């Protein structure tokens, strides 16, 4: 990111998430400012992925709202989409397209002005330049994940929402990812990351999702 002006704060206020008929979390507040990182912690099913999907705008919160600076995110979905990168459980790689074609498509879709050089540099950073012409179906799980992560660098976005990005990555790739995350934050970007593995995020704030689980009483209050 070449833009040095500080970004507004990205925050959530009193977020409630309901999946099926179960309240996953309730009354959740978070705040993240330029250059900071937020680490989502909690046991399986505590809503880490759901919170990331809410932050991305894929999932509508049942209550509360997301704000970017002063403006509510829900008012302008497309502007929000332009400032986030979401890395979910699936790698969104087409088996018949080459590594480079896969990456270039997502980069151009995010920012139509993306140059080929940037995409190639992103591949190089994640150690995929040698595989640029290889079709997606030939990649291993770790290589697919690295290709998915290369999207982060191929088109700029302020907020990175990463749902267990280290799954299937080897130690060397995790190191690369840590380096990329540190650079992104040094440039003023924000990172929200959920993980069960150890990822080195110096100075990251921790958000323990199990603290926002609905108590049995409140569940009765809503559904009883």
């Amino acid at each position: 990111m070449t833009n040095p002006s500080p970004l507004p704060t990205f925050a959530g206020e009193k977020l409630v998430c309901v999946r099926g008929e179960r309240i996953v979390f309730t009354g959740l507040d978070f705040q993240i400012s330029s250059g900071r990182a937020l680490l989502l912690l909690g046991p399986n099913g505590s809503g880490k992925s759901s919170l990331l999907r809410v932050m991305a705008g894929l999932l509508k919160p049942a209550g509360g709202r997301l704000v970017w600076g002063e403006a509510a995110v829900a008012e302008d979905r497309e502007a929000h989409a332009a400032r986030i990168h979401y890395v979910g459980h699936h790698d969104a790689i087409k088996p018949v397209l080459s590594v480079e074609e896969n990456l270039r498509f997502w980069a151009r879709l995010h920012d139509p002005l993306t140059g080929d050089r940037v995409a190639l540099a992103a591949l190089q950073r994640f150690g995929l330049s040698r595989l640029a012409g290889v079709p997606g179906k030939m990649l291993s799980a770790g290589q697919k994940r690295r290709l998915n992560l290369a999207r982060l660098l191929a088109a700029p976005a302020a907020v990175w929402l990463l749902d267990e990005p280290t799954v299937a990555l080897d130690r060397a790739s995790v190191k690369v990812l840590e380096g990329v995350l540190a650079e992104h934050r040094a440039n003023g970007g924000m990172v929200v990351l959920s993980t069960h593995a150890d990822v080195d995020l110096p100075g990251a704030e921790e958000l323990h999702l199990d603290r926002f689980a609905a108590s049995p009483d409140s569940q009765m209050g809503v559904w009883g």
Partner: protein
Amino acid sequence: MTRLGEVIHRDLRLALRQGSDSVMVVTFFVLTVILFPFGIGPEANILERVSPGVLWVTALLASMLSLDRLFQADYEDGSLELLALTPTALEILVIGKVAAHWLTTGLPLMVAAPILAVLLHMNGDGFLALLVTMLLGTPTLSLIGAMGAALVLGARRGGVLLSLLVLPLYIPVLIFGVGAIDSAVQGLEFHAQLLLLGGILLAALVLAPLAAAAALRQALE
């Protein structure tokens, strides 16, 4: 707009490399139409009489074959999530996917139709009407189909459900498509039917992407 182009470009490239869908749709169309002379008998006047209906009904069924894959592959590999998070209205991207679907299924059907019309002894006066109704009608089929495909996303046995949802909506296209060709064969004016087909296409062009995008967002929640 460039993003719309990117989506069309990608889907065409995928269709070209995987290759199966277009070939399957056209082969189904050709084979099914060829069955009719065997079933009805080779009398030219009978075949000529039923040819517009046979061609259109078969085209409807053929274009439905490839619909269940329209969003399914993107849904399964996570691409749909990223498409929904693109800084463009999802509706626009849906139009891109529908355009690519039409280019790989509707257009080949349109090319194959006149050849099959010869096989069914269709009167030469009907050919122009056949081509124009296909040109106006098949994009509508792709648009309505996209709506259905988005609605059944994630459902078990989506393919069967899809045909139940979509076929009733295809009926107006069928009526006016066949009506125009019938009029042309009898030497009558067929502008009215064409205008109606065009009107249906325009309405579908506006409404179907809205409905499909809403259904896709729902499927992603």
